[in-house]
């Protein structure tokens, strides 16, 4: 006997993501999902971004970290409101789910925010698969990871709306072709904006900040 089903296996997460999206619309806050492999510089990029955006843009951060509070401690120093999700308490450690993010966003409180940034778990595979109700997805790739990563993890670069090529201050010491790295990202995702930056020297920040501020303004009418 055959039983027809025809359902999305991840429907539960998609339903939760829709709920989150509604919540974020009500609160009139723009949500950015930041993803990368561990160590690409998400936290460092965020620290610099927050410092430059605030107080003109009011930013909150949800940070997913596997079991430490190191990232949250670094981010709190910028003056932003930060909450941390330790995924090991919930049995999963490769991505943040929509329901975890919504719970944290409610705990953090979004009434007085223009922008909520979610630093996802360091992983180029799983977070790409899970919608968290965000408005845009950013992927960070550092020049130390090699030019071929976009071709090896195409889904991540496909679902991203914007990419940051980070740590360009290290280029003089590496045998890395930055144009090839950018070219590979755009092979996977033609027309995706790619910002070449250094969270250390703060080179290349203006275009990225302009992009982000415009996105926040387009959704919320705030922050410009």
């Amino acid at each position, binding site marked *: *006997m*055959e*039983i*027809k*089903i*025809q*359902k*999305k*296996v*991840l*429907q*539960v997460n998609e339903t939760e993501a829709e709920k989150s999206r509604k919540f974020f619309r009500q609160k009139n806050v723009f949500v950015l999902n930041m993803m990368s492999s561990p160590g690409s510089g998400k936290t460092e990029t965020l620290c610099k971004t927050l410092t430059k955006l605030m107080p003109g843009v009011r930013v909150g951060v949800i940070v997913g970290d596997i079991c430490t509070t190191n990232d949250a401690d670094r981010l709190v120093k910028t003056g932003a409101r930060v909450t941390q999700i330790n995924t090991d308490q919930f049995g*999963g450690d*490769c*991505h943040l789910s929509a329901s975890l993010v919504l719970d944290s966003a409610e705990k953090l409180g979004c009434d007085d925010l223009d922008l909520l940034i979610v630093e996802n778990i360091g*992983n180029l*595979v*799983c977070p*790409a*698969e*899970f919608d968290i109700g965000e408005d845009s997805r950013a992927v960070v790739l550092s020049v130390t990871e090699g030019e071929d990563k*976009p*071709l*090896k993890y*195409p*889904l991540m670069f*496909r679902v991203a709306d914007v990419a940051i090529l980070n740590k360009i201050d290290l280029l003089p010491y590496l045998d890395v072709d930055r144009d090839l790295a950018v070219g590979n990202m*755009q*092979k*996977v*995702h*033609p*027309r995706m904006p790619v910002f070449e930056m250094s969270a250390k020297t703060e080179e290349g920040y203006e275009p990225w900040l302009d992009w982000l501020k415009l996105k926040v303004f387009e959704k919320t009418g705030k922050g410009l």
Partner: protein
Amino acid sequence: MHEMGIAEQLVKIALDAIPKDIKNPRVETVHLKIGKLASVVEHSLTFCFEIISKDTPLEKARLEIDSVPVKVHCKSCDHSWEVTGPVFQCPFCEDGDVEMISGREIEIISLELEDAP
């Protein structure tokens, strides 16, 4: 890496779909559709499924996976084609705006139950 979570959802949906009036149901096959770009590793999903389905009517079930090609469409020149590697650039126009049509599915299609003895 998240195949355990996927297997959990899969088993839950499948169990919910089995009519309650069937005595000792045993599922032989679970038909799935998985896009080639979905981040699901088949043998890892099978492994997780075996663990999660233990002591349920799905315990002996085999996963039959129909893999879905990655199809894309260029909004700039209206061409559609199948992508076989990680390159999504439009071969017909310079710098087309390319969207995915298929290849990300993770779907459960149907179950086959063993006939009652």
